[in-house]
């Protein structure tokens, strides 16, 4: 089965290196997002895993996806991951990445707006990670990347307003498929959301 059919897609945006944010501050923020229905997902609950080193941090669990604010590998970031494959059903490969990137960027932009917690910290758009939590259709191999890179590069370059996007596969064979994407963009993450919405229109 082709990696193009994969649906358990993930995107991770990183904060800039100078960000000073306390993970625990995200707990009340995510709870408030549920109260305010801040995202379009069916928001279910908040799970605090800040006691686990390099763990998922603070998770906002929705039916369709999960949003995790963590400091895995010593880098603060927002990890978005699709939980329900049917949410991407019927989408083209590029369409899937557009939706997933859009959802992640929307959450990242929203989080940037939480000024008390973020204290001006910003998410990078010059590099981010994408991953697929499905070892059956998308093992962490060069072959998987070959199948996906065309649609990924096309979408990412348009989303980030750049001509060239670099993809580098990471991790070992037994880990999830994961790619470091380098765009060189300085675009605010909120503008990425706008670009993706325009692409969808």
């Amino acid at each position, binding site marked *: 089965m082709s990696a193009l059919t994969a649906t358990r897609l993930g995107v991770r945006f990183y904060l800039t290196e100078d960000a000073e944010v306390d993970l625990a501050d995200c*707990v009340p923020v995510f*709870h408030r997002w*549920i109260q305010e229905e801040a995202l379009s997902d*069916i928001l*279910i609950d908040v799970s605090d895993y800040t006691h*686990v080193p390099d763990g*998922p941090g603070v998770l906002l*669990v929705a039916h369709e996806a999960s949003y995790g604010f963590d400091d895995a590998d010593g880098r603060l970031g927002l990890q978005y991951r699709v939980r329900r494959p049917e949410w991407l059903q019927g989408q083209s490969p590029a369409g899937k990445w557009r939706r997933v990137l859009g959802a992640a960027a929307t959450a990242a932009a929203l989080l940037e707006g939480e000024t008390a917690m973020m204290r001006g910290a910003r998410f990078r758009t010059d590099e981010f990670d994408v991953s697929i939590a499905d070892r*059956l259709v998308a093992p962490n191999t060069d072959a998987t990347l070959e199948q996906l890179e065309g649609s990924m590069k096309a979408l990412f370059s348009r989303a980030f307003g750049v001509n060239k996007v670099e993809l580098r596969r990471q991790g070992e064979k*037994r880990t999830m498929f994961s790619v470091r994407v380098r765009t060189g963009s300085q675009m605010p993450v909120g503008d990425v959301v706008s670009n993706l919405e325009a692409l969808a229109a």
Partner: protein
Amino acid sequence: MAATWKEELAPAMAPELAREIDVFESQVELCRQGKIDEKIFAETRLRRGVYGQRYDNGQRHDGMRTRTLNFPRKGLAKGPGTEFDAPGMMRIKIPFGALTPRQLEVLAEIAEEYSNGILHVTTRQDIQYHFVHLDDTPDLMRRLASVGITTREACGNSVRNVTACQVAGVCPTESFDVSPYAHALADFLLGHDDAQDFGRKFKVAFSGCQTPGCGLSRMHDLGYIARIRREEGPEGPVLHRGFEFFVGGGLGAVPQQAKVFDEFLPEAELLPTAQAVCRVFGRLGEKKNRARARLKFLVNKLGLEEFRRLVLDERAKLPEDPRWLAYLADIAPVDAAIRPPSEFNPASVPAAMAEEFQAWRTTNVEDQRQAGYAVVTLALPLGDLTSEQTRRLADVARKYVGNSVRLTVEQNIVLRWVPQGDLLSLYQDLRELRLHRPGAGTIIDVTSCPGTDTCKLGISSSRGLAWELSERLAAQNDSLNAAVRGLRIKVSGCFNSCGQHHVGDLGFLGVSRKVNGYTVPHFQVVLGGEWGNNAGAFGLGVGAVPSKRIPDVVERITGVFIQEREGNEAFQAFIKRKGKTFVRELIQDLLTVPAYDVDRSFYSDWGDPREYTIGDLGVGECAGEVVSPVDFGLQASERDLFESQEQLEKESFQDAADMAYRAMLQAAKTLVRLQERDVADEPEAIVEAFRRRLLDTRLFHDPFAGAKFAHYFLRAHAATDIEASPEEARQRIEEAQLFIEAAHACYGRMVEQGLTQ
């Protein structure tokens, strides 16, 4: 690569395991189509470890109001009051906690793909995953099955995970290694016919010794403590292996110590006696009143002597089963060293690391019985570790200990057979993974159930409190008196005691109190339990304290303990001597709750900023639904019929006809076993018994159609070797449908006439 996990893993799975999972998958499909009774499906999935989770009724209080979770397939249920699309918990049984590196890797994969990237170790040596969708569970089960792990009977009214002390086989004080016995009993009781008709869960534990006795045998339905009996034979002393055998223990809301059934149960009687107990429990145990359905209530009701008599009577009637003794012919340790023994060299520790290494070694390393080896404990924060940690732990295990990895009932992991000379190198490797936290088994190693984080029955945040206590005490660690450092704290989110608070030195169970019109989280304080000596004693309740004051309670009580203990008096003895009134007075001022506008923090629980409510409490699935073996059996026949219809649609006519016959055979067997429990599983035996018990007696006769439907079954049986045409397959299915309907009606008549066993 195959298109599905089913295809990919078929070569790696035992056919019967693969078939079981396929059957479950078809039941999930029936549930998706609304074609299966909710109660039956709930118990079915519970018996496969697929559990509910908080908010699965589709309601959640967000701190301001109760909000409806509008799951896509609203109204579609996976159990009474349980939304199909609501995420659930998956419990994975790990018999006596033993894991291999390959199993660790697969467990890590599953955490990443179907859950939240976290593996949670429970107080019964299980692994739990949270936020798992029901649709993902069949593939999850397949991937586990491919490495020899089953989730069968992890929950529900069944024999739960069989636990054993984590140092079985390497313990200096054990009589003998109980691991092979725990393994044999777990295998024997898994799916056993005599263990399918319980009104409640059933828990079994093994311990290698009386003291220190970390197997907790005295608080289980069946508890075993290894014993050696020495007899003088003609050629010298003969040593016999056996067990001090306990029955009817349990925690829950009303804890009870198990009673001694037999001071020395010979090893040959381990399996058959357990089977006999299961039969008695299945036959006589309470099934309507869930609160009184555990084995302990039956033992109390009958009295131990009568209970023993019934069990031995049942034992005498059991048909011989070769499995009772087969494993004894080849008793062998479950694991062994992969590297030679060696001595630790203190001079090898770099100066910069000396202090932290020593702190770790003091608490997390114990010498094994076998010279030159040690057991190393990985103290997991609240029993959690990440998928990445798990994967790399597999590498560490392969490097130092091979298959000698065990989960513990204190929510940690141990590596056994670590050569002493490798301790520094191992520490450095664990440090890389951030699995080097010291304090295992000390007061900072707090045990907690999931509580309000994910459990429907959670009243207060057990994990929130546990972590708060752990962090505070860790910060004081250097200044803590050794007697305090050695205490155990256990926290349960409610009275069901999954955190085993009754056997902590300091135990806490979640409750709530109304204060000035607000609901405020509290914990009931329970002091002086004894974890050692196989759960030797239960603690004394002293009253409910606001959740936010519990750390102060711990500090005050432990402080007074140090000041006022007599000599080397143990904490348990101190509490007993001082009494409940003394402790109550000691913490009296800590029982108050500040007014809402003075300190709102009391009106939220640890780790949860929402204003506290008990509105999210749901109906627990711990008890499962009581579904009789007949319900299960007839449901299984209907499932087979469904599959036969699917085969017909695919134009696999022979398969369709075979499945339809199998559906009838299943229904016939279910009815026959009501009157003849030990009927063999062979079709000929079932058909013969069906004729004798149900056809010749006219029990199966339909008031209008007479024996017509019974003859459908007999004709299908006679035609099993004949190739079925498409028309015949279609007809067989129609007849199977009518036969199963007749089976339901027959069961109804048998119940009315009191003809069920």
